[in-house]
């Protein structure tokens, strides 16, 4: 029986919010043993960002928190306390990978940055990630979230209407982009370490990772000398019809991309006479009369449910899909067929769904998906198992205030 690829790998996640903890979630899904180190006093702010189970706030009730931290164990530690620091250093000697996301400068002042830790564990792979990275003239002291990272990456500017201020994608976008780049680098570093025994330090700017999803816009600027502008409407200006169309209901939309010949004739069959206009016969005609084309399609979609339009068009062979909301995900039969959502049972919030792994392996299993850890739920176990403390020593640490 094959084992999860990273079974036995030891990871410390001392980060918060989404970008860096999501890297540790990837590693947990591959079987790594991930310890989430938190301060009970300065908790992961994701614990206080909804949506909460049943709408009731609480540090263990945020569904985003569970989605990002599933499968980890939590240890609370005050690293400024003498005993807390000693316990942390024991964990550093144990770890293969450490991920931190402090504002640049903070890890140095806490003496937990790579130069401090490498002597204790030369094979260590350590990631420091922040909005602008740990090196460079604007990095020190620059705090941010994915909502500021996306502005530094150029994403905010590119998403919006030409006649309105830039709006950007919804949510802290770089938090979703960055983990793939960092996790790929961690896995590559593990590959090298297997071969050479070398550890390494990985400095990752979340804004710089974000730029990679926009690289065609950079090449447009670098080669053509034009700085790309936001253009509002969805889809490509070189395709028609291609965009989002209004449907019945509250803020309901369907995306349709039927520019290619077979898809266009399928769409025409379904929509009927409104698209019989001779101007729409050719691609060039559709491009020149895009407004009339979009108006005719909107007149067809406007009084129908988005799901109905999706099904009708797809059945005829025209690419279409509802612009999905959170409520759509919860009932989506494709996601059920994927088995993407997994039932977790948490002592505090009970049974709920969270996300499973992003991909499927034919041979190596994923470990079962567990809830995100309750604050400090494994502090004592980990200090015993991993750091080698006795119960009496753990009591002494607690009395000192090092386990807050």
């Amino acid at each position: 029986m094959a084992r999860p690829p990273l079974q036995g790998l030891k990871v410390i996640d001392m980060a918060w919010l989404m970008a860096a903890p999501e890297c540790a979630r990837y590693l947990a899904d591959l079987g790594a043993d991930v310890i989430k180190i938190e301060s009970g006093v300065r908790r992961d702010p994701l614990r206080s960002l909804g949506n909460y189970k049943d709408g009731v706030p609480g540090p263990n009730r945020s569904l985003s928190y569970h989605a990002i931290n599933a499968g980890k164990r939590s240890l609370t530690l005050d690293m400024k306390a003498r005993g807390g620091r000693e316990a942390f250093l024991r964990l550093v000697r144990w770890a293969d990978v450490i991920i931190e996301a402090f504002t640049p400068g903070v890890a140095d002042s806490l003496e937990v940055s790579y130069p401090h830790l490498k002597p204790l564990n030369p094979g260590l792979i350590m990631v420091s990630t922040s909005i602008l990275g740990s090196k460079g003239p604007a990095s020190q002291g620059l705090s941010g979230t994915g909502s500021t990272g996306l502005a530094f990456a150029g994403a905010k500017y590119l998403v919006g209407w030409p006649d309105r201020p830039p709006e950007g994608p919804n949510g802290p976008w770089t938090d979703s982009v960055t983990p793939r780049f960092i996790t790929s680098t961690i896995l590559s570093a593990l590959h090298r370490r297997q071969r050479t025994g070398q550890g390494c330090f990985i400095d990752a700017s979340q804004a710089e990772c974000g730029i990679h999803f926009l690289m065609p816009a950079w090449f447009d600027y670098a080669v053509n000398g034009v700085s790309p502008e936001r253009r509002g409407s969805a889809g490509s200006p070189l395709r028609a019809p291609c965009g989002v169309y209004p449907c019945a209901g509250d803020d309901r939309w369907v995306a349709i991309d039927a520019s290619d010949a077979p898809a266009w004739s399928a769409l025409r069959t379904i929509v009927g006479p409104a698209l019989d206009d001779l101007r729409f016969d050719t691609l060039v005609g559709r491009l020149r009369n895009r407004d009339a084309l979009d108006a005719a399609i909107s007149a067809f979609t406007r009084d129908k449910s988005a799901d109905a339009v999706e099904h009708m068009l797809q059945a005829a062979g025209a690419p279409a899909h509802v612009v999905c909301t959170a409520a759509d995900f919860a009932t989506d039969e494709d996601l059920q067929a994927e088995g993407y959502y997994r039932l977790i049972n948490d002592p505090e919030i009970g049974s709920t769904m969270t996300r499973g792994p992003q991909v499927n392996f034919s041979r190596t299993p994923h470990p079962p998906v567990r809830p995100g850890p309750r604050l400090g739920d494994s502090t004592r176990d980990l200090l015993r198992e991993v750091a080698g403390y006795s119960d009496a020593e753990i009591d002494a640490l607690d009395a000192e205030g090092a386990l807050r």
Partner: protein
Amino acid sequence: MGLLRDVRVLEISSPPTMLAGRILGDLGADVVAIEPPRGAPGRRIEPFADGEPGLERSLTWQALNYNKRGMTLDTASADGRALLSDLLERFDIVIEATSPSEPSPLEEISLRPELIRVQVRPFSPHGPKAAYRTTDLILMAAGGAPALAGESDRPPLFFPIPQAMMEAGAEAAVATLSALIARERDGEGQIVDTPARIAAMAGAMGRIVSGFSGDTMSRRMPPASENTSPLATSNIPCADGYVVLSLAFAGAFAAMSANLIGWVRDEGELTPDIAATDWSRYARGAEGSPPPEPLQELGAALRRLCGRLTKFEIVEASRKHGFMAAPVMTMKDIDLFPHYRERGLFVASTAGPDGRPIEVPARFVQLEDDEIEIRSPAPRLSQHTTEVLAQELGLTKTEIQALYVHEVI
């Protein structure tokens, strides 16, 4: 970059494989992109050099295929499949994208057990959307990220650059390397199934699971006005564009918001008594429109202050005073931002049909003992076909010419 210097990857090029192959190439792998003789679909994605189309003019192709070699091969022909089968013997990994209308050329090839086969596909083959026709726009809609983007009086906003192929490609890179690590344990390869729809959902973040909360769902808001609360992440006009300021009074964000208010006060735009408001009462947001008076005053003060400063001046103030701000950067701003320059983000390369010199913000990570470099720009169509067939398979000049005559390459 040498992290993956001993890893060899064949990429059967398709939009969702392009970023996957490039990330692996950036990290040091030897990546060969295989295209049909008429060119990969990625060569027909805009923008184009000088706004003129052509197989060597797609800047999307050039942005996502540097650090690879490229060859052509008609994998629909028996000869093409035989050559592909021989090539697979010499590579660790093959990455492909499949769809209901395009069966995989690998189906008829017997694969050795050590091979890692990464498949990117749109929807579940076992669900009701198995036969769905997809494009990048369709997968982004199914991914849900755009649903809350933009103001509620207009349609939801999408990026002007295809993003589903980026999401799928980046996800496939992680998946590929996961299987590589697994193989190092026991020598066995496997099939890695990468659903592009799930990859595209990453951008929906918390909304992936919030439908199960029983809580009230977020909705899009009407256009912002001067009377809108400055809470949350606000977009504020400044002297040379816009700046984003994060203002929240809950938990860890409260201290940074206090620093922001202190800055506005010290700059003389907010009276000390308004600045001394007990802001913690807005920790859970503020009800009503117009918002409470202190928030209105703060919003107006921020607009006045930012209006006389540049983006980069506001960023400097944010570092000095300890609050969260970011310039709304254009590609030109990214070019001019001294931090990115001095940090070493950029690498020299060439692009366009005439190989003009450009700089690329290539270093998505920086290592203390190694660097991402651009070893080669994106391959021209069939640039390395002869080289790969001769070096890897030992084909003679005559044989390679024959394959060309028969349109196999």
